[in-house]
């Protein structure tokens, strides 16, 4: 703070006069406005019309009578009025500016009619900004000069200091470090794993670990495990570095949007001194990486917006493509990055819409603009995103714990998997011994064993289940439905199984046939039971199944691994499927297999053939079956999405609800439970968070009243109009960001955690800076003389900053660790600070 103060003081004298002038100029306008409103409140409609005409510049049409004569005229009139606007706007005097506004009011807001409106609004402030030193308040001018840089340096240093302070503490695994640290190790060890998030974040963690000398040997088994000699600082430091970058990003974004140094400082301070952001940045987590990319994308979007007057210049290209790169980064860390993609997308659409309405721009130029955006914001991120996955697949080439989630074809890529480099016959023939894998995620192999279904569970025949591990009991022999000949006998000719054939599946170990009948299945009552039946392959007609390949015509051969197979029970017409439910102990907790009468195409009733043994057929290498990059890309996305939607909260489990988050209702325990532990508790600085919460309400109030006032055609001072421009446009973008990063969580069915709110919290903090700055300026400007106004304004900003710093002083043990009695104990230093009962520190 002290570093900024002298700069402020220095700049003050020279830029002091302009606001004075501004206020004077505003004075007459205000008197005009006063007169207008005093008349308005009581007079008749007739009188009002007169008074308004009086208040407006002469020659404007009275607004009550729209009288658009003919449609064609409207159009041309629009263009005329637009011309007037541009002419009026360019010289910039106040009268010229106000005239078209009144005119527009007179037309009763054609809305999006012929977009000159937006166009005008977006261009005017840009011009105003370029001239801002002579009209904006003193502090704003600082944004352009060296003071801005000093402030930037100051907040950056503070940001880094706050994030790196006591970084190695506690020297044990905290909370989700157990996942992400482990995944980082997987990258170093190049073993394949499964996670619901895209790979970039974990890849970066792995890279950071690798570069800082971590060897990937620490098991990260559970929170609380000590790191001992393992080097974990590199990974934590990397995350803390990215987390610290948020501070300058926020500072620059707010500065760019509001052109006001105090607003930017306020936002930066909020972020620096928020205990939640500090805690979340200090550990090996995906969140700092995600937030880094989100904020970087927003910053570069804002920067490139402000380059809009110099299209196709070097900085323009730079910021535009940087936006694209950051979008790819955000999406590559977590799917939550999608929200910032939407934010940028909406911004781009409105941008293009403005360009399209600019008639001075030829269509060819517009096409160039469009192409540039398609290139930088769609193609570039997309290719980067795919490259990310390419790297991911290239690095992780060894079999690991994630294999089971993927299809057989996918597994064949992994070194060490039993499907890797195996050569088996390609087409299915009668007499082949096979294993069948269910296509649902973690579906298991079709399995049977000597045990019978217990009494009372359907017919007392041999169990058929789905089993996740490879086992001899997974082997089945394909036979013709009507003959029991041994096809492996050398005298027989090889006969391939074709799509649509009726077959019989004999369990190799027990020689029973796969069988179904109209008894209800053990768990899914609406389905039929599947059993093993018959002796030595002799059964009845309930053993017949029609084998079909999805999306194929009859008579085609069936391919190992690649064909998706459906087995229809001939007698009842049901489909063999796995319900995904776990059987009780009598079924050895394997997965239930049923025959479903609902003929739906879904992965649980589809199978593929994995192992295939047939000595009479030539083996071919599985390499030719290797899936292409697009296929594995698609598959891994399907698996991730299904994994995400599979994360459902259990009944009777207390979960975090989205409405808890903005009110800072409940935190997350990062480390330690008991009094003697080193406890870290993820909780936002309550003062900051509640300030943010209040601000959202204030912002809505301010924008609504302003928008209504503008719609009603109330005259405003230039200065206020500029303030409201910042509020509506800059603040609007940020508000949109907050909504996009918060509201979708209400619709999500998956388990939610407190830390999901932090991206939205960043937007909320920026909004706080902008809103309070505007509010203070507006209030002081309205009420007091200019010198007083200046003082009150400064005091207001300072009070807010001091409040934030002081509350941080109170709550800092939350992030930097506490030892000793719990806060519920009166002896604890945190005793008085447990303001909500739901906080557990």
């Amino acid at each position, binding site marked *: 703070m002290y570093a900024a103060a002298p700069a402020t003081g220095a700049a003050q004298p020279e830029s002091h006069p302009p606001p004075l002038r501004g206020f004077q100029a505003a004075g007459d306008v205000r008197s005009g406005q006063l007169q207008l409103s005093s008349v*308005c*409140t009581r007079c008749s*409609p007739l009188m*009002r*019309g007169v008074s*308004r005409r009086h208040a407006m510049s002469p020659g404007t049409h009275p*607004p*009550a*009578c*729209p*009288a*658009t004569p*003919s*449609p*064609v005229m*409207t*159009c041309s009139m*629009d*263009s005329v009025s637009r011309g007037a606007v541009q002419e009026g706007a360019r010289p910039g005097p106040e009268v010229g500016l106000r005239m078209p506004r009144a005119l527009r*009011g*007179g037309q*009763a*807001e054609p*809305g999006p*009619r*012929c*977009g000159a409106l937006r166009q005008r609004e977006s261009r005017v402030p840009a011009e105003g900004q370029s001239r801002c030193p002579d009209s904006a308040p003193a502090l704003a001018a600082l944004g352009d000069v060296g003071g801005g840089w000093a402030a930037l340096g100051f907040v950056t240093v503070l940001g880094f200091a706050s994030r790196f302070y006591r970084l190695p503490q506690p020297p044990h695994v905290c909370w989700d470090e157990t996942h992400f640290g482990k995944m980082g190790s997987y990258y170093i060890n190049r073993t394949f794993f499964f996670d619901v998030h895209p790979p970039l974040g974990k890849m970066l963690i792995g890279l950071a670990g690798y570069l800082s000398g971590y060897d990937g040997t620490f098991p990260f088994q559970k929170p609380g495990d000590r790191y001992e000699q393992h080097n974990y600082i590199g990974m934590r430091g990397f995350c803390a570095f990215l987390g610290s970058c948020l501070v300058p990003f926020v500072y620059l974004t707010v500065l760019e949007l509001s052109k006001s140094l105090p607003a930017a400082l306020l936002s930066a301070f909020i972020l620096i001194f928020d205990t939640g952001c500090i805690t979340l940045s200090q550990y090996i987590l995906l969140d700092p990486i995600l937030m880094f990319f989100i904020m970087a994308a927003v910053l570069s979007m804002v920067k490139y917006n402000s380059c809009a007057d110099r299209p196709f210049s070097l900085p323009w290209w730079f910021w535009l493509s940087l936006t694209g790169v950051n979008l790819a980064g955000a999406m590559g860390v977590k799917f939550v990055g999608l929200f910032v993609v939407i934010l940028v997308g909406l911004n781009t659409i409105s941008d293009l*819409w403005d360009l*399209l*309405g600019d*008639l001075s721009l030829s*269509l060819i130029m517009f096409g160039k603009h469009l192409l540039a955006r398609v290139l930088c914001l769609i193609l570039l991120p997309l290719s980067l995103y795919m490259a990310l996955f390419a790297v991911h697949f290239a690095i992780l080439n060894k079999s690991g714990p994630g294999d089971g989630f993927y299809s057989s074809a996918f597994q064949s890529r992994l070194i060490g998997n039993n499907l890797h480099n195996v050569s088996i016959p390609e087409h299915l023939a009668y007499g082949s011994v096979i294993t069948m894998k269910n296509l649902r995620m973690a579906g298991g192999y079709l399995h049977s064993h000597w045990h019978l279904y217990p009494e009372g569970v359907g017919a007392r025949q041999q169990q058929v289940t789905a089993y996740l591990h490879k086992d001899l009991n997974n082997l089945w022999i394909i036979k013709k439905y009507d003959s029991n000949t041994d096809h492996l006998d050398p005298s027989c000719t090889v006969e391939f199984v074709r799509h649509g054939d009726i077959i019989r599946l004999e369990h190799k170990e027990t020689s029973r046939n796969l069988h179904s009948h109209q008894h209800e299945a053990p768990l*899914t*009552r*609406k389905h039929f039971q599947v059993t093993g039946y018959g002796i030595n392959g002799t059964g009845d007609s309930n053993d017949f199944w029609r084998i079909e390949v999805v999306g194929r015509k009859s008579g085609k051969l069936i391919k190992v691994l690649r064909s998706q197979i459906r087995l229809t029970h001939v007698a009842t017409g049901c489909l063999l499927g796995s319900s995904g439910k776990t059987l009780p*102990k009598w079924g050895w907790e394997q997965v239930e297999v049923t025959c479903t*009468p*609902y003929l739906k195409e879904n992965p649980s009733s589809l199978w593929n053939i994995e192992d295939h043994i047939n000595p009479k057929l030539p083996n071919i290498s599985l390499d030719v079956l290797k899936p292409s990059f697009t296929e594995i890309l698609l598959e891994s996305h399907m698996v991730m999405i299904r994994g995400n939607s599979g994360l459902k909260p*259990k*009944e*009777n489990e*207390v979960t975090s609800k989205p409405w808890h988050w903005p009110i800072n*209702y*409940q935190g997350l325990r990062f480390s330690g*439970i008991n009094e003697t532990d080193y406890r870290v508790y993820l909780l936002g600085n309550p003062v900051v968070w509640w300030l943010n919460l209040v601000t959202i309400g204030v912002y809505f109030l301010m924008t609504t009243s302003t928008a*209504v006032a503008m*719609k*009603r*055609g109330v005259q405003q001072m230039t200065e206020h109009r500029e303030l409201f421009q910042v509020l509506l446009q800059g603040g609007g973008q940020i508000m949109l960001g907050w909504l996009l990063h918060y509201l979708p969580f209400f*619709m999500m*069915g998956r388990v939610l955690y407190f830390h999901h709110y932090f991206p939205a919290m960043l937007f909320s903090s920026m909004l706080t800076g902008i809103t309070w700055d505007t509010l203070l300026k507006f209030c002081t400007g309205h009420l007091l003389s200019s010198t007083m106004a200046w003082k009150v304004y400064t005091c207001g900003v300072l009070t807010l900053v001091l409040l934030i710093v002081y509350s941080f002083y109170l709550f800092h043990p939350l992030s930097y660790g506490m030892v000793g009695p719990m806060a519920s104990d009166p002896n604890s230093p945190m005793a008085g600070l447990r303001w909500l*009962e*739901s906080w*557990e520190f």
Partner: protein
Amino acid sequence: MSHPPPRAGKEGGLPAQAPAGQVQRRAPLCPAPCGRPGPAQSWPRGQRRAGRRMPVLGALKRPVLLRAEINVSLVALAVAAVASRLWGLAGPRAVVFDEVYYGQFVSLYVKRIFFVDDSGPPLGHALLALGGYLGGFDGNFLWNRIGAEYTMNVPVWSLRLLPAVAGALCVPLAYQILVELRFSHCAALGAALLILLENSLITQSRLMLLESILIFFILLAVLSYLKFCNSQKRSPFSATWWFWLLLTGVACSCAVGVKYMGLFTYVLLLVIAGIHFWHLIGDQALSKVSVLCHLLARGLALVVIPVAMYLSFFYLHLTLLYRSGPHDQIMTSAFQASLEGGLARITQGQPLEIAYGSQITLRNVLGKPMPCWLHSHKNTYPIRYENGRGSSHQQQVTCYPFKDVNNWWIVKDPGTQQLVVSNPPRPIRHGHIVQLVHGITTRYLNTHDVAAPLSPHAQEVSCYIDYNISMPAQNLWRVEIVNRESDADVWKTILSEVRFVHVNTSAMLKLSGVALPDWGYRQLEVVGEKLSKGYHQSMLWNVEEHRYGKSQEQKEREVELHSPTQIDISKNLSFMAKFTELQWKILTLKNEDTEHKYSSSPLAWITMDTNIVYWLHPASGAQIHLIGNMLIWTSANAATLAYLCLFLWYLLRRRRRICDVPEDVWWAWVFAGGLCVGGWAANYLPFFLMEKTLFLYHYLPALTFQILLIPVVLQHLNDHFCRSQLSKHMFQALIVAWFSSVYLTYRTFSPLTYGEPPLSPAELRALRWKESWDILIRKH
């Protein structure tokens, strides 16, 4: 001003515009949304003013005329609609598809038995029940199977009448909507005809189902909003203006009251009203006061009244259904006690305040996975679980879903050995510390630092047995009343929701919801939750049965526990409390097994890739299907696509200042499209976010909006794309041909719509236009 002032005849509504079909488009109408002062505003207003200035006697200068104009085509349409929906309504005399579902509620309604249906609010059921009531249904029919023959006491015709009439009324409503959107008579006629000939709408109307009622209210809401909007330009705050505005609100609330799907249309109308009001704000001709009045009027009609109506549906529901019934169990004890019979019979006359020595049963408030009571029995936890972990080997404490003598507990003061209520009773307040003694085994409820059997992160709860195994008794519990008003509140029977906090470990008594294995008789596990993550209903318990214990001796006490409770106090819940609970239950209740043979994904609806077999004649091939008129569905999709393309094209060109169509036509185009495409999208897209089982009939409201778009697009194409007279004629001929094929398609599928006449297998096979359709063919 040669235009005749609107007179009585006009209240009939329709006719004044209908003949003016051709003239209308030429006239400088303002199809723009209300509030936007269009050119149209000037003349009616002036005219009205002129009328007003006439002296009072002026009215007598003219003869009082009553002119009635009847729009014959509209009447004909309505008659045809009624005929198409009501023809052979009583057949088949068997339960068809979801009638089996709604029928049981009709029966319960007629018998005044309380039920909870998670599929929607009560108005729909009440309306169906009204049909049963009018037909003299006594509620005695077992709704258990689709296809079951109705017995003679079921008034099939009157049960199906209301949905059928509602479905028939949709036809004139569609006509009126197009007229109010300022489209020509021909377009309106076309819309009505399309609704008339849509097979799926007919099928759905002719059965005891709710969709047709829902669609009726939706269309009524849209129509009244349009009427309101148009009268806004002529005469705000007039009687008609108020009438239509209020009707909008009422129709919206009825739509929501029938099915929650109605919410989509309600929100759509709110958004449109919001936009219109926004333009009204910008209208400088209106004073601030009148803008405020407009806002208040809209707030009253579109928010306050619907909310009040919605509450009144529940009031009706709860007043009518006062007997206890099959769904009692899912409601809280307090709610159950307010119903006649059931729990009320048991709890009638219990003492209200729990005192030291009270004998109580404790019910878990959450009621999931099933309602249950805190329970213990002689059996102990196994020494070792299957996974090798050890237990305390003390007496099991579970949650048991049935009433049982082992559910009784005695509240004991830790300070004394008394197990009876003193005289006068000492009531227990928030924060008091108690011991809970199991009535039959006289052991103390206890928890300690041993992992619970199935939720190892939590503590085991047991009834303490001293096995000399160095495990001290930890049986003190603090009573925390969660819904207290002050900290001095007394613990009350049924009403208080209580948390038991273990004094030594601060763990809370919680139902984990997991069923124990065989050693625990599959009862539900109860644990001590250490990490109390705030408030959750699974940690709350309330006293259901309660009596003051009198017997000191264990034997006597056992007898006492077995005997029913006596004394008499009535407990009535307020309506709002009942409403909140019921509403919450409706929203959160979930059926477990949701798979259904005819469920489908929303994506399959647009192209109608699926159908639903509603009913099959037990012997012949006669069958009823929910299957649409393929031609109409395809055309509706084409119209939507055409609309969107044209809209985008115009929009982009207008941005470049190229106006292809006149201004007023453009705004009419935007408004009609906003309503129809918006209605379609609002009623369709949300289904992609839903996780419940979905059926083709969920698409019907969206389809109705989409159908309304067809004539809009056709008229636009005719007016603005057919330049020459010749091309216009050609286009119109095409439309006529298309209409005839729509009719043919309707005819072709009508056997499946009406279930009559029975078709031969060959004919049925011919009807299978799509591979994915499921049409049943008997093999003989």
